[in-house]
Structures are given as C-alpha cells and as structure tokens.
C-alpha cells in the first residue's frame, strides 16, 4: 500500500516535467516568441487607449508608440528572456541561481542617477554628495533622505558589502569611490556588462544586467538562500505579465469563488443523487423510475454553457425575458449596493446570484451518480444477506435502510474525497465566462486571451497536480473503504 502510494507520487514527477515541457515548447513555438506577442499586445492596447485624440499633430499617432529599450528590457525580464533557453526552461522546473538585482539604471545628466533594484524596494540615487539609498522611494528626489533603509535585507546587504557602504539610517554614502566618474566607471565595470546610451546621451539603459557581484559570491551562499531557488516544483510561481502579481496570489484570490461554486454544487449533487438513486431503486421499474431516468439523461445531455446562455436570456434582467429570476453577471451585487443590505438581504443576494451558475454546473452531473447509487442498491438487494433478511419477514424498507444502504454506499463514498477536492476547482471556464464569475476558470480564460504565458503555465501546473492528487486520493479511498481491493495485483 505505502509502496504503491510512494510509487504513484514518484510517477507524478515525470508528469509535471512533461506538462511544463509541453507547454514550454508550445509557448516557444509561437511565431516571434512571447516577447513579440507581449510587445504587440502593449502597442495594441496603447493604441486603443489613446483613441483618436491621442494622435499627435504629426498624424503618425498609431506608429509613434514604440517600446523603448528600457521597457523592452523590463518585459524581457518579466518573461525571463534575459536567460538562455535552457536556463529559462530549467527555471520553470527547478533551478538555483542568483538573479540580477538591478533592474534599471537611469542617468540624467547633471542630476541624480537612479538605480532601481529588482524587487523595487530600493532605489539608489547618486548626486554630487555620493550615493543615497532609499527604501520604497517612488517619488524621491536627491534631498529627501529621511526614509530608512532596512539593513537586514539579504540581497541588498550582499551588494552593499562588496561595493559601497551606505549609512544605514540616512542612506548617505560612507566610503567607496567618491568622484562621479569613478563611481560610474566602477558601477559599469562591476555590475553591468553592456550599457546603452540613448541618442541624446542622457540616459543609460542597461540591457544585460547579470550582476557580476553575485557571480562572485560563494556557491554555498547562493545555495543556502531560498530566494535563489526557482521553479514550480518548489512551488515558486512566476509573476504574471499582465497583472504584475505573483501567479499564485492571483490563483489564491480567485479560489474562494471557485470553492463556493464547487462546494455548493458538490453537496447539491450528492444529496439529490442519493435520494433519487435510493428511491429509484426501491421503485425499480415503476413510472417514477423511468421518468426520472429520462430526466437525468436529459440533464446529462444538456450542455451546461448552452443552458447558461438560455437561462440568462429567458430569466435574466433583459427587457423581454419571460421572468426576471437571475441577475446578469457576478457573484454578488456591486459592493455599493451589497454593503447596504441587511444580512438576510445579503444571503438572498448570494443565493440569487448562484442559482444560474449552480444549475448549469450541476445539470450534467446527476446521471452518473444517480445510476451508480441505484445500481449498487439493486445489486446489494440481490445479495444473499438481503434476501435472507427479507425471507425472515423484515419489511422492504427496513432491509433497505438497515442493511442494504450502508453496503451499497461503498462505491459512492470512495469517490467522495477526490470529488470534494476537485469541486474546489470545478468552475467551468465557459460557465464562469458566461456568468462573469471571477473564478479560476475565468482567470485561465483571460490569461489565454491576454497571452499571459507565466499565468497560463502556473494555472495548468496547479490544475494538473490537483487532478493527479485527486486520482490518488480516490484510489486510496477504495482501499480504505473496501479492504477487498488491493493494488498488488493491479499491475497486469
């Protein structure tokens, strides 16, 4: 048993590698690669955003929007394109390597130089007095040195140790090169391989910023720092391109809505199917049995998203709907309305918004479970112990509820854990899109529309693993509930 579980868990590793590989190949195959896609998307959006009045007097409004090298570099960094293909691939699996700390350097002649670090928590300004370090300094000019610097940050501390000393309180430079030119040479020589001067000579854009200092650091220090580890196998998910947040956070934010849908439809399906299956079994062959059979089959046949479109049209808020029973979109009323409701009103508001999606999500799932319940109850009814109980004069009801029921629920219970977990993520992409429910399905859809590759990949990875774990859980469920089943013979 344990060896079986371990074996299954180990087999999940190649599966995960395979999925990432497949997706990596697909996203690399896209003409122009992800970079071109993202750039053209940004240009498109900028053009739409600008509208008609955005066009300059020169009349070249649409063509004027260009991605400057600095922006390109930032996109590249987000996509991880500053690494070679192998490292990029390994970074989505497992990888240990230091990232460059510096994400951009701007130099305005005669003013302060601004260095932005990768985590964007620090900025270094340089002026005639030397370096000034600021934490979270978004609107800093050279003088406002009041923001404290957190010396305990490992990244910065290690840069600091090797380059220039700053005063931990004021951020003023303590030692190191003092003249402007010397500092510039030093910075360029030590931190950046290649630098680009703008045509007006006023700006430095660093195109290759692998931090030399970091390469010099000891391997042990690199390995022991958890921040240097990357890859989805370590549950370190990339940053979404479009939403500028970690993918895992985006997924976490959407989870409650998907979970709400899932849990409700889970309990609804199970309770209805149990009741219907048992009653169908006890009235086997009756009109009730055949009518409900047809009904669950019709439900099974009806595609959920097609029904969703129909429901919104016929029972939604539209002007010529038959009845106004369900709202058009969302999981709750807009907050300005929702917050004014009493708790009863809030409850009703939630139910009201859930009727449509839940109907469409569950409509297809009754057939399988109901027939499973019915068949297994019937099967148990024909077992010797049930026949014997009947022969001894117990009523059919009594045999059903006291003896048969518990045994016949075995096949249902085994699917329970897997289904329960699966339901958290069950929100169908199509139904969530139609009802505009901001769940995981819609997240995947928008990610796909916006070609947010890191987000799609993280989504797929998480979905896949949840699916695999659910499968394992349901297999384990079989063994726990029914000791007759073993896995040892299941090889052939």
């Amino acid at each position: 048993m344990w060896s079986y579980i371990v074996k299954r868990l180990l087999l999940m590793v190649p599966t995960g590698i395979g999925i990432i590989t497949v997706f990596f190949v697909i996203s690399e195959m896209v003409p122009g690669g992800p970079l071109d896609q993202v750039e053209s998307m940004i240009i498109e959006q900028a053009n739409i955003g600008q509208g008609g009045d955005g066009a300059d007097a020169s009349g070249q409004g649409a063509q004027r929007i260009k991605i400057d090298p600095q922006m390109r570099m930032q996109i590249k960094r987000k996509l991880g394109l500053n690494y070679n293909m192998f490292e990029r691939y390994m970074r989505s699996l497992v990888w240990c390597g230091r990232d460059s700390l510096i994400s951009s350097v701007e130099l305005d002649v005669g003013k302060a130089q601004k260095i932005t670090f990768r985590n964007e928590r620090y900025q270094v300004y340089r002026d005639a007095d030397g370096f000034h370090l600021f934490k979270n300094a978004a609107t800093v000019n050279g003088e406002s040195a009041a923001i404290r610097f957190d010396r305990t940050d490992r990244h910065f501390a290690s840069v600091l140790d090797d380059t220039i000393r700053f005063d931990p309180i004021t951020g003023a430079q303590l030692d190191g090169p003092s003249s402007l030119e010397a500092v510039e040479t030093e910075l360029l020589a030590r931190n950046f391989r290649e630098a680009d001067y703008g045509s007006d000579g006023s700006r430095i854009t660093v195109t290759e910023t692998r931090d030399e200092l970091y390469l010099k650091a000891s391997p042990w220090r690199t390995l022991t720092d958890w921040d240097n580890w990357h890859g989805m196998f370590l549950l370190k998910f990339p940053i979404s391109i479009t939403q500028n947040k970690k993918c895992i956070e985006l997924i976490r934010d959407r989870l409650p809505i998907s979970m709400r849908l899932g849990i409700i439809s889970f309990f609804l399906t199970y309770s209805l199917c149990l009741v219907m299956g048992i009653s169908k079994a006890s009235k086997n062959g009756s009109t009730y049995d055949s009518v409900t059979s047809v009904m669950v089959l019709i439900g099974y046949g009806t595609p959920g998203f097609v029904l969703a479109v129909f429901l919104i049209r016929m029972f939604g808020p539209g002007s010529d709907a038959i009845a106004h029973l369900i709202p058009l979109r969302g999981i709750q009323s807009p907050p300005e309305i929702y917050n004014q409701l009493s708790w009863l009103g809030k409850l009703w508001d939630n139910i009201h918004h859930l009727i449509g999606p839940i109907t469409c999500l569950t409509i297809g799932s009754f057939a399988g479970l109901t027939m499973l319940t019915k068949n297994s109850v019937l099967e148990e009814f024909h077992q010797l112990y049930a026949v014997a109980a009947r022969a001894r004069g117990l009523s059919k009801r009594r045999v059903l509820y006291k003896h048969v029921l518990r045994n016949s629920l075995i096949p249902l219970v085994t699917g329970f854990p897997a289904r329960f977990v699966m339901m958290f993520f069950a929100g169908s992409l199509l139904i969530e899109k139609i009802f505009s429910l901001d769940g995981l399905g819609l997240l995947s859809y928008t990610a796909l529309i916006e070609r947010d590759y890191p987000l799609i990949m993280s989504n797929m990875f998480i979905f896949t693993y949840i699916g695999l774990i659910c499968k394992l859980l349901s297999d384990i469920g079989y063994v726990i509930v029914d000791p007759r089943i073993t896995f040892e013979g299941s090889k052939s």
Partner: protein
Amino acid sequence: MIFSPEFRDRARKFRKNKRAFRSFIILCALFAATLPAELFFNDRPIVIRIDGTSYFPVFKDYTYEDMGGGLNVPVSAYRSTMFNEFLAGKTPIVQTAAMYGGGTGTDDAAPLELVTYEQGPPRKVWMLWPAIPHSYKSSPRSETLVNQRLASPFATTRDGKLIPGASEARHLLGTDKYGKDVLARLVYGFRLSLLFGLALAITSTILGSIIGGIQGYFGGAVDLVGQRGMEIWGAIPRLMLLMILSDFLSRQGEFTGATHLLMLFVIMNLTSWMGMAGHMRAQFLRARNLDYVRAAKSLGVSNPMIMFRHILPNSLTPIITFLPFSISGAIMALVGLDFLGFGLKYPAPSLGDLLSQGQQHMEAWWIMIPAFVTLTSLMILLTFIGDGVRNAFDPRYK
C-alpha cells in the same frame, strides 16, 4: 464484415429499446434531411435552363461565357442586376478590372456602369430555385445590408424604415448580426457539427485503438511509458489546450475555409483519442493472456496480425459503446471553441457562433432560441442513443 450472432443479438436489444431506437431514427432522418442542404438553402438556382441548355449552378461555377456568350467572368450572384440583364438578353461584353472579385452572395458583383452590354433578343429562361434562397454565407444586397442586420423573422420595417426586399427575402428565422440567414446557418451548422463529430469520433477511435492496443498488447515498459505520456497529455485541461493550439493556429498563417477546418480537426484529434485508448488498452491487456492469443502466438502469427485479426474483432464493445459519447463530446468541443471565438472563422456555419451571437444580442431571440433548441436536442438525442447502445452492448448494464 459478417456480424456475429452475438452482435446481432445486441443490435436486436438496441432496437427493442424504444427511446434509443427512436432517437437513432430521428437523428438519422435529421442528418439525411440536412445532408443535401445545398439543394434547399442556397442563393443559386438548382437548375437553370437558358435557350435549351441546362446548367447546374449549385454543383458547378459558371462564367457568362459558359452560359452563352459574353465575358469570361464568373457569375457570382444569380440575383444580381447584371445577371438579370443577361437573362433579359443583354450580353456583357466590356468591363473594367473592378468587376473581378465579387464574392458569392446576392450582392451585385459590380457597379453596372462599368459594364457595356450588347443588346440581343430575350433569352428563354427556366429556373428552379431552392425553397430558401439563402446559403449560410450569402450576404444581403448592399442597399439593405444595414437594415438586414439582426432583423427578426419576416421583418418588413426597421426603426420605422421599410426594409427593401424584405418580403421576398424569406428569412424564416431572421438574420444574424451580419445580415445572414439564421435558418440556413443553423441547418448548415447542424450538418457540419454532425459530420465533424462523426469524423472526429471515427479518427479518434482509430487513433485510440492503435495507441491503446499497442500499449495493452505489449505491456511492460511500453505500457508504462505510454501511460505516463497519456497522463501528461490527459492532465492538461482539454478546452484550454485546444484554445492554446487554436490560438497558435490562427496566428501561424492565413488558413481559411476548408483548410482551417481541417487544421482544427487535426488539433482536436490530438486530444480526443485519450478516452478510447484507455478502453482499448484494458481490452488488449486482458486479451493478450487469453488462450486464443497464446495459440496464435505459438503458431508464429505476427504481432500486427494477432492484434488486427484476432484481438480487435473481439474488442469491439468499447468502440461501439463509446462512439455516441465521443460524437457528442467532439461536437461540444467544437461548439465550445466556436462560442469562445477560438473555433471556425466567421462565414463558416457554426452553432457555437450562433449561440454566442445570441448571448451578445439578447434582443435577438430568433438567434438564441433556435441555437439552444438545436444544440440541446442534438445532444439529448445522442445521449439517448448512447445510453441505449451501452445498455445493449455493455454486459455490465444487463
């Protein structure tokens, strides 16, 4: 293939299941009725007889030259003024280059002033038109275009203005947002969906049988590797994978019409064989240890021969049981993709596109309700058939 008595017995059992058998008959009838859709829904006459010679525009594209003189210009619209002039005896002889490139449809192919006619005696003409003079791609005449968009069935006015030619337009189910006939799109879409589903079910059954068969028959390392591969491929959410591939496809190059449909078919094949492969693997895995296979092996029969001639005919149950469900699965995948805009390109008749138009334009009940009814009844019929087949063929459901 001669059917075994067992198979005939099961077929009889299926026929006895009234619900399933009737659904099967209805579906076959609907399919047979929509198969010659070109003859009933078309913007070209079925037969046109000009001065004693017959032409069949539904089946063949003609030029004016073919039809008795004039320019070597294809007749693109049989309701156009130019064609009417031609029938009245005027033969077009000179035209400018601008005339070329008129698409199909009832729209005039070119402005009349660009054509020079040669007046002759009126031609003797006899035409047989289809019942509904629209195909799925016929666009309305240009002067009516704006009004014909999203016109309800038999609409004669729009915003207080008379729709020109509305009464003879015969849009029994109105028009969609590009002014195309909904009923024609529905019928063509139904046929396309069913054909697509059938073809996909067949190819994926073949693919699945081959892959599953090889895995099950050879077992061991082949099976283990195959299982992992299937796990990886199957773990990726199907719709998402199809969307990614379709998105990739649409940016890969300019595929249009039939080529695009074919490419869509190919990418759908990539995912649809999985279910079948699982079943066939189980069948072959079981069969390879049975006596008849061992006997064949010991006689030196080659592996492909054993698989194809001996095991496969004994493993038809999952193929037949699975078929209706794999058809419905294929159709729903296509409809879902179309609905999300990742499927067929617009002029192609697609039920998913009609459904999404019905969702976008809530006021257009004549789009949404027919699309909903068609799709749902198609799916329910397939479910009934599938249920009946499973009851008849699967020994576990006896």
